[in-house]
């Protein structure tokens, strides 16, 4: 494979394009509403109506507007775009005949809806456009050009430099500067190094990485290959949770295709660079999204975290320097290399560059996936793009960062969405889950829900997380059952502080966050549930000294 071959594939693919393209979303969300049957029926109908010469029915990845699915997009060769929503398998004849001006009462969406119009797509640029099971489709939109560019025009250190300059920060949640991490792995001594992609997305209400893997697997593979070249690794692992079977099967297809074309394996683009990728499937433990637990799991051990240092960059898989990045981080790499660090850094804020994908869910009119520039006010996301709370309710709070994050109250909706601003509000950027709550939501119940999640997902290794989450959960339950007193609330707050400061890994260290943030902004909801302390200390406050001397 050389550049000419790559370009030839792209040209051939573009030449084969038909006048009209019916893009049928076949990601997990739409698939669960029988998108596979819709695609089959559309195919049959195009044939039946004799339109095969001008109409292509394309399997595509996620278009983002998941709440309106199943979705079918239509691209006309004159640039016109149409969108069908809530499509049912029996709608196929009407949709196809509408292309010839026939009658069609299938629900139409607006492709210029603010939900789409406000987005800036870098990571999800190909989502809903290319066939995720076709490497040619990916190559036709410029795929693997960045890998070629990196391997033939840049030294590894220059790739690291470009990523550093772009200002990209880890999209898994913590926001560690990606270039700095790559530089550390590149400089770590060792003949064998690894690149690991963390696809163990597990926050409740988060499905960004799943969508990227299902919609554009080659983008992630290309990013990993560029990373491997930059840090000097020859082996990659894609760690994907078992609950994402479609993502796994599409990755398997993608790896096979890339190997066949010589874009993975030995001598990529006829350079000495070797890179192989294997998939490792998680077994259901949320904590395996924590990098040291993930590595233990890849090694075939029980998935539990270990203390850092040593960091994976120095001692990771089997003791070798290992680069671990999240799916979305890797998905940003090829666009950065292809378009330049300055281009990427032109999006976002001073400290948070680029875009971020969010899964917008909960009590919100428009549910789905959005990609927005960093620094966009939260209000724009939930009100303009999300359309506010349904049924005329008011938005009360937006939960970001899942069980490690917090609840941002409505009075702070003008906060720009960037790493620092969210942290200041006691929440975190997290991996991109954004759960909207309306004024009917009981915030103590929300805190209990997330605590229950952490309690169930604690690996059991360190005591504060294993036993502390259980006690915090029980205290929250006691408060909700109106059996708790002010002393119980004090106990809860003390435990939050203890678990946060003493737990071994991020899971435990952040488990109290939803409770702490609801206590910070919605304390009255807790206090309203408290009972008078009838059998508390005699008198008020602290137990008195036993001044019972005769």
């Amino acid at each position, binding site marked *: 494979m050389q550049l000419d071959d790559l370009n030839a594939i792209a040209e051939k693919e573009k030449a084969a394009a038909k006048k009209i393209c019916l893009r049928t979303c076949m990601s997990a969300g739409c698939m669960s509403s029988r998108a596979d049957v819709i695609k089959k029926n559309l195919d049959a109908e195009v044939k039946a109506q004799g339109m095969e010469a001008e109409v292509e029915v394309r399997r595509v990845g996620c278009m983002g507007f998941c709440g309106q699915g199943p979705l079918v997009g239509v691209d006309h060769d004159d640039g016109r775009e149409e969108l069908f929503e809530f499509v049912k398998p029996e709608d196929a004849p009407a949709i196809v005949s509408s292309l010839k001006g026939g009658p069609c009462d299938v629900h139409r969406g607006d492709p210029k809806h603010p939900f789409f119009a406000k987005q800036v797509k870098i990571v999800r640029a190909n989502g809903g456009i290319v066939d995720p099971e076709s490497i040619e489709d990916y190559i036709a939109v410029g795929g693997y050009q960045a890998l070629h560019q990196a391997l033939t025009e840049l030294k590894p250190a220059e790739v690291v430099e470009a990523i550093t300059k772009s200002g990209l920060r880890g999209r898994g949640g913590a926001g560690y500067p990606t270039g700095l991490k790559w530089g550390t792995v590149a400089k770590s001594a060792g003949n064998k190094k690894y690149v690991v992609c963390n696809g163990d997305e597990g926050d409740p209400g988060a499905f960004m990485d799943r969508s990227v893997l299902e919609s554009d697997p080659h983008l992630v593979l290309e990013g990993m290959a560029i990373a491997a070249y930059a840090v000097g690794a020859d082996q990659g692992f894609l760690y994907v949770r078992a609950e994402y079977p479609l993502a796994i099967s599409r990755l398997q297809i993608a790896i096979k295709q890339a190997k066949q074309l010589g874009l993975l394996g030995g001598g990529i683009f006829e350079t000495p660079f070797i890179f192989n990728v294997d998939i490792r499937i998680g077994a259901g*433990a949320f904590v395996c999204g924590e990098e040291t637990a993930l590595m233990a799991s890849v090694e075939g051990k*029980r998935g539990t975290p*270990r*203390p850092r240092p040593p960091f994976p960059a120095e001692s990771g898989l089997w003791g070798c320097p290992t680069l671990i990045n999240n799916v979305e981080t890797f998905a940003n790499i090829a666009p950065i290399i292809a378009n330049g660090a300055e281009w990427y850094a032109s999006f976002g804020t001073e400290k948070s560059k680029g875009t971020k994908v969010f899964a917008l869910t909960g009590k919100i009119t428009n549910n789905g996936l959005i990609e927005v520039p960093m620094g966009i006010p939260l209000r724009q996301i939930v009100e303009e793009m999300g359309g506010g709370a349904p049924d005329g309710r008011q938005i009360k709070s937006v939960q970001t960062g899942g069980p490690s994050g917090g609840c941002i109250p409505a009075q702070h909706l003008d906060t720009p969405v960037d790493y620092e601003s969210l942290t200041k509000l006691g929440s975190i950027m997290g991996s991109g889950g954004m759960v909207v709550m309306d004024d009917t939501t009981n915030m103590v119940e929300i805190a209990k829900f997330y605590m229950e999640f952490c*309690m*169930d*997902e*604690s*690996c*059991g*290794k*360190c*005591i*504060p997380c*294993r*036993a*502390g*989450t*259980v*006690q915090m959960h*029980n205290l929250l339950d006691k408060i909700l059952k109106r059996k708790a007193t002010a002393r119980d609330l004090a*106990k809860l707050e*003390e*435990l939050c502080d*203890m678990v946060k*400061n*003493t*737990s*071994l890994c991020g899971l435990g260290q952040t488990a109290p966050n939803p409770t702490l943030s609801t206590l910070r902004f919605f304390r009255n909801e807790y206090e309203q549930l408290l009972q008078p302390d009838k059998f508390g200390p005699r008198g008020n406050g602290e137990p008195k000294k036993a001044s019972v001397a005769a």
Partner: protein
Amino acid sequence: MAAKTLTIDGKPITAEEGATVLQAADEAGIKIPTLCHLDGVYDVGACRLCLVEVTGVAKLLPACTTRVAEGMEVKTDSERLRKYRRITLELLFAERNHVCAVCVANGHCELQTLAYSQGMDHVRYEYLFPKWGVDTTHRLFGMDHNRCVLCTRCVRVCWHVEGAGTKNVAGRGTRSHIITDLAMPWGESDSCTQCGKCVQACPTGALFHKGSTTGEMERDRGKLEFIVTAREKKQWVTAD
């Protein structure tokens, strides 16, 4: 090997490069509470009792896995650390059924000793009273899950000292528990070499020698007969 100088609780100390803060403190006669640490096996930093404050580091660090560094200033005792240690111990006592009064390890238990050292005179959290069993299928040893603190010392000695790999951890969160081979009764384990290192490693009454609990005494009178027969008839045989 280069030496590092540091201070622990204000006391200037030299330690070998690569030594842990726990080792350095121990050499200097400064006692840091530990539970999952066991001399002779590698550390896992799981019990969080040995957390110390290090100047310039925002997070608390486990003394057992943190290496000494030049100029490091370590504090092993503060009001905050004492509070956290006591809570840790209370959480442990509340988690399983640690009924000291009827425990084989009463008076010889590291969990008790730690509780006393941290002034824990009661547990403020609700006891969970989980239902756990006792595995007495092994000929020599017993495992009482009610007393287990999941320090994994038994697992580590079994894998890394004995090399048998019999003991392991199964389950997640507070349902985590020690298993034998593929979660089978201990007595049916093929890999157990019956070395008893796990019993020696256990800080509580979770692992015990059989015969040491109330009413368990069994006598082997055959031993006497064996000796007498051997002495008188010069025959080293047993009755069966």
